[in-house]
């Protein structure tokens, strides 16, 4: 449903779409049923000359079941939705699969810095690749991310991955994703972060392993004399 418009770009996007579909089906059914009953009653019991309204207290269990049964069923549906939602939540947010690579995302007013591990696949080494407003990842690899903020709350959101996580200054927030679709897509900041909140876009570039290797190679300096990479210790305060 969602994927008609927003492509389904990560390993768990389909699961989240499925939960949304389930909820849409259930709530849609209830919504249209309730609206239909409402409109039927309005039309059926419009004021008529000489017809007096019924006197129904609604306290008798026999009358009450008209309301009681629908909400028992609502409860059943609720329980089903809870199980569906929580099982996805556990996959996406509560457990992390083994990572192939870790990237660090540093947000500040109003730009993103993405620290890629570079050729050696490890962060905090001299060959880290720091790019502003562009995150390069490989299709099919499992990534962990470390979110850090230099100033206020931000939120790291990639709609095609169905991924969203707030970034809290003073902490490192972790999560994971596994891209399944190549191409360039939007990264959004979804937590208001000051006047530049609307001009804080970034792009995620999902590449094939070959393209990514070429990209890494182009940005890796040939000599070892590289400036030491910025440590997370410089967090907090304005840059």
């Amino acid at each position, binding site marked *: 449903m969602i994927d008609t418009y927003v492509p389904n770009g990560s390993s768990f996007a389909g699961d989240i779409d499925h939960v949304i579909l389930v909820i849409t089906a259930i709530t849609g059914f209830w919504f249209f049923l309730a609206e239909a009953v409402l409109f039927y009653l309005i039309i059926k019991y419009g004021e008529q000359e000489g017809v007096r309204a019924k006197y129904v207290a609604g306290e008798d269990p026999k009358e009450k079941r008209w309301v009681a049964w629908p909400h028992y069923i609502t409860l059943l549906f609720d329980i089903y939705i809870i199980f569906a939602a929580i099982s996805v939540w556990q996959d996406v*947010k*509560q*457990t*992390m699969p083994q990572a192939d690579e870790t990237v660090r995302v540093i947000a500040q007013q109003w730009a993103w810095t993405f620290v890629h591990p570079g050729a050696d696949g490890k962060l905090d080494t001299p060959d880290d690749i720091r790019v502003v407003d562009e995150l390069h990842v490989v299709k099919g690899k499992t990534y962990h991310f470390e979110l850090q903020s230099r100033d206020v709350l931000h939120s790291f959101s990639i709609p095609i991955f169905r991924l969203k*996580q707030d970034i*809290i200054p*003073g*902490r*490192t*927030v*972790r*999560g*994971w994703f596994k891209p399944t679709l190549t191409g360039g897509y939007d990264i959004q900041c979804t937590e208001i972060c000051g006047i530049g909140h609307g001009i804080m876009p970034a792009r995620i570039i999902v590449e094939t392993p070959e393209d990514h290797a070429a990209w890494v190679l182009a940005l890796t300096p040939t000599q070892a004399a590289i400036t030491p990479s910025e*440590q*997370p*210790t410089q*967090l*907090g305060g304005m840059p």
Partner: protein
Amino acid sequence: MNSLLTIACAVCGAGEDPAKGSYVGMTLIISALPLAMLGGIIWYVVRAAKKAELAENAQQAKTDGRA
């Protein structure tokens, strides 16, 4: 400075956050407290109202008896 970075593992939930226990405890207390207080007031008022009614009835019975 590095030590100031606390790890709030939002995903693995490994309990690294030292505030977790008190956070959960405070959540419970602060959620249940208003209900407990209001329940207390309602209980007291209902009990007092019942007592007043009983006393009133007793009074009534007394006056009736005398009459």
